[in-house]
């Protein structure tokens, strides 16, 4: 009997082994043909749904649905690769007109794309239950259908970033009105029909399967038949999937890229930087009369903020957190491809922000904290944010630097949402990392970062800067705007509103046996786009 049981398990193991071998043979056989299915493994998006307006921007069906405005795959600039062939705003940016491509058509025979679809999409995406990113840039307009392929939006106030809201980082994906009229929103849930290069096949827990639309209306067709998205959180597992051939493309943390290339994989990165990372001394609600102002925060003192910056050895940070693969960041929200770029700041950076622990200690002394810093303790948030696996290590490293110049610090573990809640409650009296992903137009970045009604993850507010940014937001004249932006960036630079860390491209690891290359600019919130440009091995 005892032997019997052992035999049973031996037989079980045997049959499993045979099964595995058969499986291996099958995969080997299909390898001979061109790549049939491209599998990408990535972190699960925050919201798994077919409704784009119920996501914060990382939308699983980005390859299925399209927006009005496209982005150039190389430069990331707006182009006509979206559903609109052209668009323009009037002089004071209160009216925007979009002309749609007449040849664009819906999957599953829902007909051509019309202005009615756009008006319908605008309505559902700006509803009260929307989670969409930048919805403030969308709201407040009335859609006017001029003809089947022309639509305009009218606003009471200038809406200068409406194009941004309709391009890569925006979430204004266009949904079919015809499908909605026929099936309601459940139609989107069950059998979503888009206009992109890939058609929805099925969504299962942990996985989305898409198929290539043959003879796509745009005239281009990807060279593979299926696109599979797999969602996995564990970095080691994502790497394992790539190395075992289960995934062709893997979105893994930078520190694992070396492991991937060491095993024969290759790294593809976004054409443009896809995000800027800073560490934010939050909770600086310093506008006159703000009840949330906390004078007890040491970093209300600009000298302390400079000392914090001086304490950081940015070369080491790049080395330790980004494997040396990152560009230095000079000013959060500022980028040379956008308005208001101040080139001199880069030159001043070393002198004013450079690593200088002695200067930092001296600044502490000047600010009234001689002989190191007893009280209060500076809370550094260690958090996990999707797409930023390095944050916890960053918190530890910052603590090391801070401690070494005389700060007293503690690390507080907090999930990203709880940090947001602190900000919303205007009591984010903590130091924490935050990112600008993708790098947004300067006006969006400035209003988001420095105004009270901006994002809850930013907390530097003072009267002078608020005045500059509000004035900029209300200004239409391009030259005047440019000047105000430069003024705002310079002011922020000189007042050490944050600790600039790095500017990053978005890398993915690919299996060279399946993937030749993939060109994407890095303009979406998770950095990925232009799925049809995945080029597979013939």
């Amino acid at each position, binding site marked *: 009997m005892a032997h019997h049981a052992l035999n049973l398990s031996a037989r079980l193991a045997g049959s499993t082994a045979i099964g595995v071998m058969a499986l291996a043979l099958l995969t080997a056989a299909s390898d001979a043909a061109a790549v049939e299915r491209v599998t990408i493994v990535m972190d699960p998006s925050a919201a798994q749904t077919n409704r784009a307006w119920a996501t914060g921007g990382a939308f699983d069906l980005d390859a299925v649905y399209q927006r009005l405005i496209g982005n150039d795959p190389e430069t990331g600039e707006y182009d006509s690769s979206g559903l609109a062939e052209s668009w323009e705003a009037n002089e004071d940016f209160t009216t925007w007109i979009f002309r749609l491509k007449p040849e664009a058509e819906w999957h599953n025979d829902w007909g051509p794309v019309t202005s009615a679809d756009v008006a319908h999409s605008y309505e559902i995406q700006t509803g009260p239950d929307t989670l969409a990113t930048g919805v403030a840039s969308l709201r407040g307009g009335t859609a006017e259908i001029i003809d089947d392929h022309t639509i305009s939006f009218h606003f009471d106030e200038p809406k200068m970033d409406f194009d941004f809201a309709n391009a890569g980082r925006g979430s204004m994906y266009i949904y079919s009105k015809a499908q909605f009229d026929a099936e309601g929103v459940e139609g989107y849930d069950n059998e979503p029909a888009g206009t992109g290069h890939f058609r929805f096949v099925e969504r299962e827990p942990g996985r989305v399967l898409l198929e290539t639309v043959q003879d796509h209306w745009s005239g281009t067709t990807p060279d593979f038949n299926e696109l599979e998205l797999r969602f996995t959180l*564990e*970095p*080691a597992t994502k*790497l394992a999937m790539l190395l075992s051939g289960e995934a062709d493309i893997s979105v893994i*943390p930078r*520190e*694992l890229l*070396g*492991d991937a290339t*060491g095993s024969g994989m290759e790294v593809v990165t976004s054409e443009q930087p896809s995000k800027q990372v800073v560490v934010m001394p939050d909770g600086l609600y310093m506008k006159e009369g703000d009840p949330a102002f906390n004078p007890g925060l040491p970093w209300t003192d600009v000298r302390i903020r400079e000392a914090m910056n001086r304490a950081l*050895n940015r070369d*080491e940070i790049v*080395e*330790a957190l980004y494997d040396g693969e990152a560009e230095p960041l000079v000013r959060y929200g500022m980028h040379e491809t956008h308005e208001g770029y101040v080139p001199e700041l880069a030159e001043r950076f070393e002198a004013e922000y450079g690593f200088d622990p002695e200067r930092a200690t001296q600044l502490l002394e000047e600010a009234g904290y001689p002989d190191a810093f007893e009280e209060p303790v500076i809370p550094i948030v*260690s958090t*996990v944010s999707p797409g930023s*696996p390095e944050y*916890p*290590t960053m*918190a*530890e*490293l910052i*603590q*090391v630097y801070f401690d070494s110049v005389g700060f007293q610090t503690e*690390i*507080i*573990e*907090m*999930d990203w*949402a*709880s940090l947001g809640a602190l900000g919303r409650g205007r009591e984010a009296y903590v130091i924490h990392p935050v990112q600008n992903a993708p790098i947004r137009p300067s006006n969006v970045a400035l209003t988001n970062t420095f105004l009270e009604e901006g994002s809850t993850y930013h907390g530097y507010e003072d009267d002078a800067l608020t005045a500059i940014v509000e004035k900029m937001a209300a200004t239409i004249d391009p030259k005047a705007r440019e000047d105000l932006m430069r003024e705002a960036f310079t002011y922020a630079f000189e007042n050490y509103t944050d600790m600039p860390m790095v500017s990053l491209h978005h890398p993915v690891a690919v299996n060279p046996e399946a993937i030749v290359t993939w060109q994407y600019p890095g303009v979406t919130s998770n950095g990925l786009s232009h799925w049809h440009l995945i080029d597979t091995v013939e």
Partner: protein
Amino acid sequence: MPPPAGGVARGSGRSFGLASRYPLVPITILMIVLVIPSFFADLIAPHDPYAASVPNRLEPPVFAGGTWEFPLGTDRLGRDILSRTIHGAKYALSISLVGIFLGTILGTAVGLAAGYFRGWTDRIVMRVVDVSFALPSILLALALAAAFGSSFEGVIFVVVFVLWSYFARQVRGEVLSLRERDFVARARVAGAGHGRIIFRHILPNVMNTVIVLATLQIGVVIILEASLSFLGIGIPRPTPAWGLLVADGRALVVSAWWVSLIPGLAILLTVLSVNLFGDWLRDRLDPKLRQR
């Protein structure tokens, strides 16, 4: 997260032979890996466990091509893994001791009351125990961490939550049978009050069981702490708690395996020895076994 060493301790009656033959081996390992480092970490550890040195990051251990400067290698920030693992013993020991102490006291008290008074007390207590068994502890831990942030106290709370109901159930069972025994009846006839019967007559008789069970939970608690760290709700960094060290280094399992392997070995050795020692203790203390 593993369940408490459920029936493992209870009912497992007789231990494997190894422990009873060589009780000194697990005790020695425990001393070396857990106890001595806990008390003398500052003396033994070659480096400050928090001192980072980026240029020395991810140095391999000396037996894998590293240098004696960092005998067991360094982590992402160039911190000495040997020193961090040595200091980690403190946290392993304190979490286990505090968590098990509180969980045991609470569970034993409740179990004593339920088993002794029976009736409604018992019914209510056992329903609460049922609820706490049916409530997934890991979700509780996640919710608590989201509400209050993760902390040493939070980990202790989860440990106590996992353990108390288990102890309550075991102790109640023992008490139910004890209270029918002659010496309890005699004490009652002699006019002893409830308090006296419970503390003088019943408690001493369940103590052995409780001590053995508590010892065997040390391993459970250390593994639990590791699971909580895996979920990012364990002891906050940069504290070098073993679970956190293993969880933190897990992504580097291929290229810098030592980051998670070394603290992992510390966990393995400790839990292994604790279980062996617990087996030995059970052989010693369990009266049912002594007859044999």
